[in-house]
Structures are given as structure tokens and as C-alpha cells.
């Protein structure tokens, strides 16, 4: 399938700021599940660095504006050919040892409720294959957190989300990571795009899910929010230990004032010409 992306992020500042610097993780890397046909990032007036690939295989790019300004707009557009690999991440060049993803952060630190969730989900299946256990955990997380926009915010931790009993894809991913760690499986946060189709439950186009490292399979994506594994409707941008670490945009404003954020994402499947 060929997916087209048009992703605009606009920050407006109440009063002009002295400068802005951002680290962007906004370019899909090549793997068996996706191939970039064309891609561009445009930030008017800003200086862009040469993109580079980090150890996790993500493309990173620094963007900076060193003059007084009252807004910054990042426009990402491109086309990606995607393939359904049943969630399995293959052919992705990366250097980080999977076991490094056994560590938690403040955002994925388990609490008692998450411990109970894991114990219940795996009861009687403690010795099952990783894949089976991972599916059980994803299903349990999906059940424990009905999709509820507005119940949580960008800073909500896994423990807070489980206590709230509701959340969005970010919370699903972070709670699932927390669960996987308890079950002894390396896990990480993935950010990307989702082409919401009619028959799946359409959640945010700017999307997030978790990847768990499974014996024999390697990294496998689990989208607890949509109760599935990522397929050809998904574009993978990058990964990290949690939502902050994997954020597509991490930035800092100098001489900051109140900011407002406006994001629009349009994903669409392009009509394909005859397959060769």
C-alpha cells in the first residue's frame, strides 16, 4: 500500500521568543514493513542539520531558529510504501542491544495496579511462549484502558493512566511497556502514523504503540489501543524508552512565553497503479 502523509505542527507564542531549537524524529527508516518513496520536512526560516541515524535506527535532525519569532511551523509530507509484516520489525538497521530496553523510566515505572494486571493476564501462562504472553498483555492493557481522549495528558505516566482507568494510545503504549518489563521482556515506545480505515477503530493519525522483543521473533509491534499488531496502515517513525524519549519533536524555546500548539495530520492510501 502507498500511504501519503501531510503532517503540520504549528507552535504559536503569545509574545515573541528569542530562539527555538528542536530535535526531530520525523523521517521513517527503511525496513521490510516500509519504504520511503519521497519525504520532505520543511520549516520556513529555520536552519536544518544534515539528518543522521542514531543507534536505534531512527533519523534525527536538528532544527533551529535563532531570531526573535512568534511562531514556528513544521510541515512533513511524503509517500511511503508499506507492507504487512504482522507487526514484526525486520530488516531494520539498529545497534542498541535489546536487553537495554529492560529499563524503566518515570513514565513506565510499574505500580501495584500494573503488577496485578500482569499477574492476572499471565495467570496459568507464565511459561507460555513470548508471543502468547505478549498478546495476553496487550489485550489486558486494551481492556484496562478504554480509549478516552482527554482523560490523560502528554505527561501522564503509566501508573497514573492505570489509576485513571482510561487513556489514549500514548498511555496504552506506556502501560504495555511497563507490563512487558515486569514479564521480563524488553519493550519500547514507538511513534508513527496510522491510516485509520473504516473497519478498524480509527484512533489518532499521529499514533504510538509499543514494541516488545520476543524470543525467536525479535521486535514485534503491539497496538493495544487498536487491539492489533501494526500492519501496512502504519508508518513507523522512531522509538525510545517512553513517550518523551521517542517524541517526534523535542524542543526548547529560549525566552519562552505561553505557547499554543496546532497539529494536523492527514494520512491517506494512494490509489495504486497496477502491481508489477
Amino acid at each position: 500500500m502507498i500511504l501519503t502523509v501531510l503532517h503540520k505542527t504549528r507552535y504559536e507564542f503569545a509574545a515573541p521568543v528569542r530562539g527555538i531549537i528542536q530535535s526531530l524524529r520525523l523521517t521513517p527508516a527503511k525496513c521490510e514493513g516500509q519504504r520511503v518513496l519521497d519525504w520532505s520536512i520543511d520549516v520556513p526560516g529555520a536552519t536544518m542539520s544534515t539528518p543522521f541515524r542514531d543507534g536505534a535506527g531512527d533519523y534525527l535532525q536538528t532544527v533551529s531558529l535563532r531570531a526573535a519569532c512568534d511562531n514556528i511551523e513544521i510541515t512533513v509530507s511524503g509517500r511511503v510504501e508499506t507492507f504487512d509484516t504482522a507487526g514484526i520489525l525486520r530488516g531494520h538497521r539498529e545497534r542498541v542491544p535489546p536487553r537495554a530496553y529492560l529499563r524503566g523510566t518515570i513514565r513506565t515505572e510499574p505500580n501495584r495496579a500494573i503488577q496485578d494486571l500482569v499477574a492476572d493476564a499471565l495467570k496459568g501462562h507464565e511459561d507460555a511462549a513470548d508471543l502468547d504472553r505478549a498478546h495476553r498483555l496487550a489485550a489486558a492493557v486494551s481492556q484496562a484502558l478504554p480509549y478516552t481522549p482527554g482523560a490523560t495528558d502528554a505527561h501522564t505516566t503509566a501508573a497514573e493512566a492505570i489509576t485513571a482507568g482510561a487513556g489514549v494510545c500514548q498511555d496504552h503504549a506506556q502501560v504495555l511497556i511497563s507490563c512487558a518489563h515486569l514479564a521480563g521482556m524488553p519493550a519500547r515506545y514507538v511513534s508513527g502514523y496510522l491510516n485509520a480505515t473504516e473497519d478498524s477503530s480509527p484512533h489518532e493519525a499521529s499514533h504510538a504503540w509499543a514494541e516488545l522483543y520476543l524470543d525467536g521473533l525479535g521486535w514485534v509491534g503491539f497496538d493495544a489501543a487498536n487491539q492489533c499488531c501494526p500492519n501496512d496502515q502504519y508508518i513507523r517513525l522512531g522509538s525510545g524508552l517512553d513517550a518523551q524519549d521517542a517524541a517526534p519533536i523535542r524542543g526548547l524555546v529560549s525566552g519562552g512565553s505561553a505557547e499554543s500548539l496546532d497539529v494536523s495530520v492527514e494520512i491517506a492510501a494512494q490509489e495504486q497503479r497496477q502491481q508489477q
Partner: protein
Amino acid sequence: MAEQYFNEMYDGQGLRAPYQMLEGWYQNMPAEIRAVKQAEAEGLFRRYGITFAVYGEGGDPDRLIPFDMFPRVFTSDEWRKLERGIKQRARALNAFLSDVYDRGEIIRAGRIPADLVYRNEAYEIAVAGFRPPLGIFSHIVGIDLVRTGADQFYVLEDNCRTPSGVSYMLENREVMMRMFPHLFQENRVAPVDGYARLLKRTLDSVAPEKCERDPKVVLLTPGHYNSAYYEHSFLADLMGIELVEGQDLFVEGDFCWMRTTEGPQKVDVIYRRIDDAFLDPLCFRPDSALGVPGLMNVYRSGGVTICSAPGAGVADDKAIYTYVPEMVRFYLGEAPILENVPTWQCAKPDELKYVQENIADLVIKEVHGSGGYGMLVGPKSDKATIETFAAKLAANPSNYIAQPTLALSTCPTFVEEGIAPRHVDLRPYCLVGRDIELVPGALTRVALTEGSLVVNSSQGGGVKDTWVIAEE
């Protein structure tokens, strides 16, 4: 009681060779002259501004570290062996770092447990797969040594991040030479003042490949409220490089720039004296105001070198320490010249059991602690202290390691009544760049309280000038 410790000046047979010249010196120094000299030394230190703020003590931020005028002396033979051992260790530690951020051969070979490395907080995922210039991660390796016999040295710990204290090594010598010039005329004390030049050369040698001119090197300090600020300023000055704070640098495009009165100037090498977590709020702690936003992107795309490399701390963790002799064998194919102190990992149940049974005889340290805080010196502690500590240990065993109480050697030290033996340790500073260098000298820390084994300046320790007698 005193005989159980190795006395570096008087061993069983009498006066040891390296101290021959010093016996007459101190014996012929009248008490009143000594007092004058001591005051003079303090005046010099205060003039130079060498002070050391003690964490959590409040009090005078301009406190001086006590300086003991009685030098500590090594023969060139003793030093040669230490030097070989220190350099060997520094090479092995760097080989380890460059391996664990690459293919992790030592882990694949089963010589170090994977979790000890990869789950370690100091292992930086952000730099996995990145090879810094020349593959060097730790450019200044501080190795803490203790001596227990004429030929017996133990490594207490390694410092691969930003070991401090080298300014004392240099200033102690400076002060001694000003106060007792004749001692240096009569003894062939090897000079240490080449350290700054060697450090600068080391930093120059790891400039990024992209740098096509004389590299611009800067020293990044957390600022003048930091307890080691004096040292930062002192070293920058000796090397003739700018002392910068995070706010003086910014990232634009593929490079890091310094704000100067002539506009932005490109920076090639950053000798940083701030922790990884604070280096870049866009990569690590987002609340850090000490770092440079975007720096890690520039670093990882080869636009600037950071010394020591982010992630170097995984090599000097106290849990990894046990495996350093293994690193020497694995990477260098050599037998370790310097020995480790036998160490019990409290994370391991059987070792924990031993530690709990023998707690009163052991020294117990936090795995990530430093500065002599959070440790228990069993034989020097009362029952209540031991019991409190035992409870902490039981609650979180993997946070602790234990070592036998070492019989630290003593060195004569000026006290009220003349001289008396006091326990000392040794921290040499090994430089790793294109070449591997060690100046013939080190920081000797001395526990000024009678019988004390804690030499940390934050806990009442002092410093001494450390001599290596040059060969004929």
C-alpha cells in the same frame, strides 16, 4: 597497633630509601618555622583561590582543603610498575567501552553478564553504535589506589567520567616548590607541570574528522557555584582554552558554536565537567539548564567531540569494577598488573550472606555512590550504626558491594607534636588520546584524623604533594 599497617617511611628495617632526604629536613625544622610555613602555605592556597565547597555542609564556601607539607615519595622503580599497571587499566577500560557500545564481544563471550552492562543506568542507549574519534570514550582515567605493603597496591575504584582533583596535584607541587626550594634542589623530583600540555594534546588528538584546522577546545563547567569550579577555571587557564557554561554554547546546523564578542565561533572538542544527564535537555533530562540543547545530535553526527564520551560511566560502576581484571585479560591478552580489592556483590545471594555475617569487619559501599558518602566502615562503626546499615542492605542488597577493610599504608604527616603516621591513598590521572600518558605524580589524599581510613576531602581528608624520584 601501628605495625599492622605498612608505614611508607619507616618499615620494619628502618628508614625506607625514598624518604632518606626528608628525615633530616623535618627533624631540623623548628616548630616555630613549621608553623610559619604552614601559615604561608595556607596563604598561598587562599591567594590562588583553591577552595572546595563541601556538599550539604553549608558553612564557608571558600573552605580550603587541608594541605599537609610532608610529601609522599615513590622511587622510580615503584612508580614504573604503577605506571604500567595504570596505563594497562586505562587501555582495558576504553577497550571495554568501545566494545559494549559496539558488538559487545565480551558479553557474547560470556565474560561479563549482559544485564550488568545493558541494564546499567550508566549505559547510554543514545550512543549505542556510535564510535567516538579514535574509539576513545574515557580520555582522563582517574584510578584510586591504596597500598598495603612494599609491593602491594590495590585498585579501589576507577573514575572514567570526570575525575577531579588534578588541580591539587599541580598546586601542591607549586606551593611546595615555593616554600622549600632546597628540597627540590637536593632531590630529583620528577616534574608534573607538563600535565596541562599533555591534557590539551590529548583533547586536540580526538577532534572530529570534520575538523580541518587547529581544533577549538573548550572546558564546559556547570558554573561557579560548583564545588570544583576552581579546578575547572585553573585547568582552562593552564591549557589556554575557554571556560564555558552551557549558556555560552549553542547548536546550529551540524555544529556547536560558542558565543563570543566577535560572533559565533565553532567548537570542536568539549572537555565537559558536567554529568551525562545534564548535557542536552533534548536528549537527556529535559529540565537541565546546564547543558546545550541539541548537543547530542551534533556529537552523534560527528560535529563535535565530548570528553569523556557520554556513556563512559558504565565502565566505572562499582558493580562493573569486579570485572576490570577480566577486561585486561580479554582485550589485551595480558595479565593484570594491578589487583582489585576482593569484592562481594551483595546482589548475589551467597555473597550477600557472607557480607551479612561479617558486616562488622567489612567496608560496604553503594554501587553508585561517591565521595565516601553512604558507606559503612565496619570496624570503625558502633553497633547502632551497623544495625541501621544492615537494615538498608537487607532492603536493597543489589545497591551495595562489600570489601575487606584494607590496611591502608601510612605516610608521615605533620601533627601537633611533630609527625605521625596517617593513612593515605593515591589518585593518578591517566590521559588517553592518540597516545597514552601519565605524568609522574598523583594526588595523595590523607586521612588527617588519627586512625581514620576515610581520606575524602568532604570527610576531613587532606592532601599531600606526591613525589616520584627521577632516576639518576
